[in-house]
């Protein structure tokens, strides 16, 4: 579905993304994990060409999207969408929920019919009367559901979810992860899930790439990486995850 080859991006003298390559299969949830500043968000933005890479190739269903002109790219963008980390800043405060979700249709001049919006709201678990509300009337979890609905209204094939649950509390987190799983199977989506929380990644991803200082240090099947990490950085990340069992606490002696 998506193939990234030798992708690099420098900001000044910093190698934000440093010669990374990976492949995402159709229908899988592939996760990029790492700490703040490791380059995972930059990678997501490069794939959508929200940022221009310095070098490398990005093949989407075999087509090199870096060779496309802006107008060709715009047509392709229907197929790849993104959900952002912060549901407070990624929604226009002066637009109503219904208009926010339907805006991509207007951009592409598509008439999807009146049934689309109610159907989408149901899929992401929002009440129908929310279409008339403004973002400030919604909680963080509800706003993130709006972000998801907006991202899937064009029936994309590929979705990037960039730290979509890290600003939410655990119960809402679990609900949003359920929504992601549901839309993934309903729409047969392929998802690039970017996150720093290994426990969250563990509950969702099929395959994982661990990033550190712009490089991928380890990549592979989630169960294998989590149960038998080969790189010291992966071990360090796994070790840091708090365990909900006081008897196993590493901080108490």
């Amino acid at each position, binding site marked *: 579905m998506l193939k990234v080859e030798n992708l690099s991006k420098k900001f000044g003298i910093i190698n934000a993304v440093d010669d990374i390559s990976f492949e995402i299969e159709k229908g899988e949830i592939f996760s990029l994990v790492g*700490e*703040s*500043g490791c380059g995972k968000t930059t990678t997501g933005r490069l794939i959508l060409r929200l940022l221009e890479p310095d070098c490398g190739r990005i093949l989407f269903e075999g087509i090199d999207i870096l060779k496309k002109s802006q107008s060709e790219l715009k047509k392709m963008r229907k197929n790849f969408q993104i959900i952002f980390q912060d549901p407070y800043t990624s929604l226009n405060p002066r637009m109503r929920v219904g208009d926010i979700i339907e805006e991509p249709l207007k951009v592409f001049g598509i008439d999807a019919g009146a049934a689309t919006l109610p159907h989408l709201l149901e899929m992401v678990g929002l009440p129908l009367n929310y279409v008339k509300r403004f973002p400030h009337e919604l*909680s*963080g979890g509800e706003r993130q559901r709006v972000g998801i609905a907006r991202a899937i209204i064009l029936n994309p094939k590929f979705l990037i979810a960039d730290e979509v649950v890290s600003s*939410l*509390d*655990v*119960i*809402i*987190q*679990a609900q949003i*992860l359920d929504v992601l799983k549901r839309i993934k199977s309903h729409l047969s989506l392929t998802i690039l899930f970017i996150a*720093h*929380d*290994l*426990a*969250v990644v*563990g*509950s969702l991803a099929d395959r994982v790439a661990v990033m550190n200082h712009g490089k991928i240090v380890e990549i592979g099947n989630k*169960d294998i990486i*989590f*149960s038998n990490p080969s790189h010291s950085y992966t071990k*360090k*990340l*796994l*070790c*840091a*995850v*708090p*365990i*909900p*069992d*006081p*008897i*196993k*606490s*590493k*901080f*108490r002696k």
Partner: protein
Amino acid sequence: MLQIKNLRVEYESDNKIITAVDGINLTIEEKQIVGLVGGSGCGKSTVALSILNLIEKPGRIAGGQILWDGKDLLKMGSDEIRKVRGSQISMIFQDPFSSLNPVFTVGDQISETIRYHEGLGKRSALLRAQELLSDVMIDNPALRLKQYPHELSGGMLQRVMIAMAIACGPKLLIADEPTTSLDVTVQSEILQLMIDLKNNLGLGILFITHNLASVAEICDLVAVMKDGRIVEQSDVFKIFEKPASDYTKELLKAVPKLKC
């Protein structure tokens, strides 16, 4: 040391009264970490603000007592409570970026607290600030003193906040979601730091969070809050072994776990 008795806090909005905290009781002793856990909007931060009498309009404390070594903090005048804030009870917040002033150096901000409460001169306050920064394990403290908040990472800023909070030797630290905005690795370092503060300085800590996993790692006692009430309160080992309330079970279920 700190005893919250039947605390009620209300907010008024559109002529309706919303009860954010509905009669809670909680005790914190020295050298004890008490976890206050609940989802967003359950009233846990309101409890924290009430302890230092920081509830602002349209909110008000509608009833109850908060006893600090036997004296009711809620009955203190503003001069009196100002002497408690920072020097006996201090607080750190979720977002260290917005808790620090962007136009003053880290050194200025830490020494301001020291000069106010301890009456030290500028130079000796800065020296003390440098000691504090090494106490919270910041590397190269002399350099950090001269830097501005935007030059430091989130984890370092949270350490700066903790340095400020312990500057005047408080007995109680209120930590409101101190690790939520941080990476897992940094989060684990801050948890370690809080355990060290408890063991080395004998600090009592009220640790507010939504994540039961971090509670399991460091707390001695746990209170679970929902809709302004404490639904369950007990020893940390007991609560994880045999949670009594359905809400605690729900919170535990929601914690993402590593299957390894």
